[in-house]
């Protein structure tokens, strides 16, 4: 793996606390030596936030299509009626 990808992996291991004790110590040392590393960590955290946001959005679309199935298909009419009677 090229160097920049190794660094991405190291930051991931740091973010998810998956590094070995030795690697974690090494990473802490790198943080002191390389002032850009903390920025890279910040951007990588944001990337993970965005992946989570994207994933939730995709999952919600799947859930909505289940909803449409349950509330529009004739086979589920009794389920729909049971819910609608509550409102």
């Amino acid at each position, binding site marked *: *793996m090229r160097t920049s990808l190794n660094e991405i992996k190291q930051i991931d291991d740091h*973010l998810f606390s998956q590094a070995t004790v030795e690697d974690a110590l090494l990473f802490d040392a790198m943080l002191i030596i390389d002032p850009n590393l903390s920025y890279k960590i910040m951007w990588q955290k*944001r990337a993970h936030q*965005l*992946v*989570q946001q994207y994933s939730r959005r995709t999952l919600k679309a799947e*859930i909505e299509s289940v909803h449409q199935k349950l509330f529009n298909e004739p086979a589920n009419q009794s389920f729909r009626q049971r819910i609608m009677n509550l409102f």
Partner: protein
Amino acid sequence: MATFDLLNNTPAEREQFFITLYKKGFPTVAKYVSKMGGSFDEAKDIFQDALVIYYEKTVNSSIEINSNEQAYLLGIAKHLWAKKFRDDIKLVPLDSYEDENGFIESDYEQPSPNKLMHYLETAGQKCMELLKAFYYDKLTVNTIAGLFGYSGVHSASVQKYKCLEKVRETIKEKSLAYEDFIE
């Protein structure tokens, strides 16, 4: 307990999982929301958010759900209803909290769509799907290699980091150009 094999976490499996949870859980939640004076649409929104939370707990194997799914979904829904009520009357500021990875979570409401997300969804959808499979759906690297057609686990892993780098660099560039890309 509605659950599925994580090795087989495909869209078809998830659909079945959610249909089961909908049939079991939605009547109770709808009854509760209706009793509290809520509408059908409010019940639907709250229940769907509860399903997202339930899914996340299920794929995160470190957390065990001890009660049955019906009670669990109702519990989340009650919490979300109370939160919605607090937020609606604006007595309490929107709170956020950090999850175990230190990420700030804006609870479970979807942040408003933004240009950056749109960009990543269109220009980098394959990467976003791959990253979702790894980090959100928590599929094993073997499963991912098969699903995405990689020759082996090594190339799937390499691709994961390439994609993460691409997303990271995109966010960095766009954010530096447009401060308001990041919420």
